[in-house]
């Protein structure tokens, strides 16, 4: 019983979730944790009270939590930690705040890692660490990090398609790379672009592989697409860059 309490606090479980079972395999350095919604409260006529989502407003009966999933989580010490839980099959909520299923120690169906570990991986990727370094730092296999990296990158071009980009040079234009590396100083008065370029230049120059540099260029172009209306003089400079 005390083990469950201890691991609950280490994982940071809130009152909506509890540990049903946990097992430790010292030889394999592996910890498995099974989570279930906290003991269902009974309401009038002893009906099981549904799980209320403060994000989308739905009430989900516990019996609809049918889709069992398992995710890798941050290591606890040297132990690889795996978390299992059941989710509703039709997850509809897109809000983080108030959604009982959007917790750092849970994941989404089909994802290999928890939201918390995914966030850490994306944060490290954004800071310019290569996939192989992230694997070493977080004790993960390359396939897992790649799947997160590709999933993250794949989500972005979709948004791009909806934006009108006829006036904007494509990523092959040398101005993007010169701007990101600091070889060329674009003149701008836009605060957001200056702060973005300041961060991005450091990340771009510290990147140890071209995939990562390409992702930074993509991020920069996305910014231009999204803020086109405020960037007419900057786009003109870019188009004139040789």
């Amino acid at each position: 019983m005390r083990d469950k309490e201890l691991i609950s606090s280490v994982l940071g479980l809130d009152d909506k979730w509890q540990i049903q079972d946990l097992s430790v395999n010292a030889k394999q350095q592996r910890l498995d944790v099974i989570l279930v919604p906290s003991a269902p409260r009974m309401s009038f006529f002893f009906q099981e009270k549904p799980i209320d989502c403060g994000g989308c407003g739905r009430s989900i009966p516990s019996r609809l939590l049918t889709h069992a999933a398992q995710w890798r989580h941050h290591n606890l010490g040297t132990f690889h930690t795996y978390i299992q839980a059941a989710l509703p099959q039709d997850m509809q909520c897109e809000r983080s705040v108030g959604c009982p299923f959007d917790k750092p120690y849970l994941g989404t169906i089909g994802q290999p890692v928890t939201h918390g570990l995914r966030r850490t991986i994306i944060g490290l990727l954004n800071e310019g660490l290569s996939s192989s370094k992230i694997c070493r730092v977080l004790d993960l296999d390359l396939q897992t990090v790649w799947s997160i990296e590709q999933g993250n990158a794949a989500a972005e071009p979709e948004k791009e398609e909806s934006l009108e980009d006829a006036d904007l040079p494509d990523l092959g234009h040398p101005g993007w790379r010169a701007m990101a590396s600091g070889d060329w100083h674009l003149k701008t008065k836009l605060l957001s672009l200056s702060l973005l370029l300041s961060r991005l230049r450091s990340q771009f120059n510290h990147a140890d592989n071209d995939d990562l540099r390409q992702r930074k260029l993509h991020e920069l172009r996305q910014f231009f697409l999204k803020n086109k209306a405020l960037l007419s003089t900057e786009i003109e400079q870019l188009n004139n860059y040789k």
Partner: protein
Amino acid sequence: MSTSLFDQASRGRLFTLDEACEILSPGRPAAVAADKALLQKLPKGCWIGGSIPYFMAQDGGQVCQDRVFVQLMPEEVLSVRIQSYGLDEIHRIAVDGPEQGFSVLLIPHNTEVHHAYARNAPNYEQMYMKPIIGWITGCHLDELATGKSGVLNGETGQLVEEAALAMHIDLPANCIAEIGIVNIFEQGSGPVFHFPQAGMHVDDCRIDGVEGRLADYVIDNNIDIQLPLVADCYGVMVNVSIAAVDQEKRTVDLYAPVFPDTEYRFADPVGDYVSGFQKALPELPGGSQFSCNCILNYLYSELEGKKTEEITGPMTFGEIGYQLLNQTLVYMTIHRL
């Protein structure tokens, strides 16, 4: 409600409690600043509020605990979402922001979420892609040891002291929010400081490439700690203000974090803030739709009774123009295409 009261609140003004109640009752979205006790006396409605008793009001800088600063949001607002952010959620602030519009973010001073935002905001997903403006809430400086700052959700009437509060505002496609800053400090000609890691508590650093300690440099060179460290971020001067120097431990506490891979220099003295500000203020044809300035500018530049042009707003414990800023005026304009 009288038209003049409504017009004044659209430009951001300090009001009596009764006037503020009259302005907020009809439900037009607003951002509010007032002493914490006063915030709790306001009617429920579509607003968020932060605690602070210092203002740049229409009649000049002042400390006041019996009036309420109300800034109505632009009349083109399509929809509003008020959302609370704890330590585990604040990283989503930009992701949750509207695709077309802006977010106003208020964070209570000296909380975990304040420190997390200070250190990590530049790396949050979609940061800089969507406008985020706001401030760190505070209290009267005489109550600093005991008084807690807070944020209040006008929709629920709930006052929170440990979580941030955001108002995500959707605008129509022809309205574009732009955030700007006025920082009259420039990098001086002194040595360059590099810090090995991000943080608001500093010990070792490199000074012109040589290992040293910031505290030693400040003490040995009798540096005026009212002058911030300044980083040149692609042409934008970003300040990091000094909170305290511990001579015994040889450490320095900062009001905002320093970051690695960034060059800092101490600012040159600025002389008269108000005239420096007037020179630095860009033309704002449509006026500012939201602004805030720093309590340190209020104190160090003795702004009590002085005016900073038409720019009004709370004098805060930290400014948010995307990331956390210091000793800086932050403002927002709306471009109507």
